[in-house]
C-alpha cells in the first residue's frame, strides 16, 4: 500500500508500539534537560542580564514572552508538517502527532498573549494594543482553536484528525497573508508601530539567556507532544494487542 513510499526507518518508527516505547524512553531526558536549561536561562535572564537603559527591569519578561512566541509558530509548523504527512500517507502516527501539537501550540500562544499584555502595561500604558505582532498572535490562537474544535466535533477519531489536518494546512497558507494584512492595517490606522525587538538591540548579556530559554521551550515542546502522542496512540490503538498487554502490565 501507500506506506511503502516511506523510508525504512520512518516505517519502523511509524509503528505505534515502537513509537510508544521510543517516546517513553526519550521523554524523561527531554523534560529533565528542558528544566535544567530553563532554570539556568531564568537565572541568567532575571539576575545576571544587565538592566535595559530604556525599559528598566520590565523588559525581563522577554525571557518568557519571546521564546513562547517563537514556539507558537514552531508548534504550528510542526503541526502542519505532521498534518501534511497525515493527508498524503494517511499514517496514523502523523495524525496523532498533528492533533497533539495543537493544544501545546495553543498554550504557548496563550502564554505569549498574556505575557505580551503584561509587558504592554508598563510599556504602552495599556493591557492590550492592536499592535501587528500581538494581533497576528491572536489570529494564530484562533487557528489553533479552530483545529482543536474541529477535531473534537467529529466522532470518528481518524476522520476527525484528517479533517483537522486539512484545516491546519489551509491555515498555514493563510498565516503569512494574515501577518501581511495586519501590518498593512496597522500602518493604515495607526501610522507607526512600536518595535521593541530588533535583534541588533540585544546586548550579549541578554542574548545567551534568551537562546537558552528558546532551547528549553523547544525541548519542553517535544517532551510534551511525545507524551500526549503516547496517550493519543493508546486511545486510537486501544483494540490492538500491544495496547492491551501494556495496560494489563501497568495495572498489575
Amino acid at each position, binding site marked *: *500500500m501507500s506506506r511503502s513510499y516511506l523510508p525504512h526507518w520512518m516505517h519502523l518508527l511509524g509503528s505505534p508500539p515502537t513509537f510508544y516505547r521510543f517516546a517513553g524512553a526519550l521523554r524523561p531526558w527531554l523534560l529533565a534537560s528542558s528544566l535544567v536549561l530553563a532554570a539556568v536561562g531564568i537565572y541568567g535572564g532575571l539576575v545576571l542580564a544587565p538592566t535595559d537603559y530604556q525599559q528598566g527591569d520590565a523588559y525581563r519578561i522577554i525571557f518568557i514572552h519571546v521564546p513562547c512566541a517563537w514556539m507558537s509558530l514552531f508548534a504550528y509548523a510542526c503541526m502542519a508538517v505532521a498534518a501534511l504527512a497525515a493527508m498524503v500517507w*494517511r499514517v496514523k502516527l502523523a495524525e496523532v502527532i498533528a492533533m497533539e501539537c495543537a493544544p501545546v501550540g495553543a498554550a504557548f500562544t496563550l502564554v505569549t498573549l498574556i505575557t505580551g499584555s503584561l509587558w504592554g502595561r508598563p510599556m504602552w500604558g495599556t493591557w492590550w494594543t492592536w499592535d501587528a505582532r500581538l494581533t497576528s498572535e491572536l489570529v494564530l490562537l484562533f487557528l489553533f482553536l479552530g483545529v482543536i474544535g474541529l477535531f473534537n466535533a467529529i466522532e*470518528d*477519531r*481518524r476522520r476527525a484528525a484528517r479533517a483537522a489536518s486539512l484545516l491546519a494546512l489551509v491555515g498555514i497558507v493563510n498565516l503569512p497573508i494574515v501577518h501581511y494584512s495586519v501590518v498593512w492595517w496597522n500602518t493604515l490606522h495607526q501610522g507607526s508601530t512600536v518595535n521593541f525587538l530588533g535583534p541588533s538591540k540585544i546586548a550579549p548579556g541578554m542574548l545567551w539567556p534568551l537562546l537558552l530559554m528558546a532551547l528549553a521551550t523547544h525541548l519542553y515542546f517535544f517532551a510534551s507532544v511525545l507524551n500526549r502522542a503516547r496517550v493519543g496512540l493508546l486511545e*486510537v*490503538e*486501544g*483494540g*490492538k494487542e500491544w495496547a492491551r498487554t501494556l495496560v494489563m502490565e501497568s495495572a498489575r
Partner: protein
Amino acid sequence: MNHDPARADAVLFCVRGLAFARNDEPVFGPLDFTLDRGETLLVEGDNGSGKTTLLRVLTGTLAASAGDIRFDGRVATHEVLAGRALFLGHHPGVKNDLSPRENLAFLAGLYGTHEGASIESALREVDLAIYADTPLRLLSAGQKKRAALARLALLPGDLWLLDEPYANLDRHGIELVNALVAAHIARGGATLLTSHGAVRFADPDARHVRLALSL
C-alpha cells in the same frame, strides 16, 4: 494468485483479500470474489454485518484496510470507476424539493444516459410518469424510493452496486427492482446487491455470498 492472467483481465470486477477495519476493529473480510458481465451477486448478512460498509469500500468512499479491487483489470480508483459504476445507497441521492424529472435531469447531466433511454422512459419504467413534476416531498416513501431507482433505468454503467434496493418497497416495487436488474444483466451489465435476507431475489442463477463477520 490467479493462474490465468488473461482470464483475470476478462473479469469485470475482481476483489482479492478485501478487508476493512474501523479504528482497528475488523468490520469484514478478507473477502474474495469476482463478478463478471451478465452476473448478479447477492450479498447477504444480518443488520450490522458490514454490507453497507462493503459497498462503500467498493465505491471508493471508504479506503480498504487491505486487499485490492480491480475493475476491468485496473485498480478501481475514482477515475476508473467514475461513469462505469452506479451506486444506490441507503440515502436516496435525490432532492426532496425537486420533482422526479428534475432529479433525473440533474443526474443525466452528470452521468449521461444509456442507449435508448430517456427521462420519460425511465419514469414510465418505475411507474412515476404521472408524478413526473411533483416535488418529492409530496410523494410517499415508496414513490420516493422509486424516484431514486429511476436512475437505474436512465444512467449508463456496467456495474451496479445496490445497497438494500428492496427496502421500503411493496411487492410491486420488488418486482420492479428485479425487472431492472434483469434488463441490466441482459444488456451485459453486472450487479452486486445487498439484502438482509427478508426478500427473496427472483433470479435463481444469481450467486449468493454470505458476508461472514470476522469472528
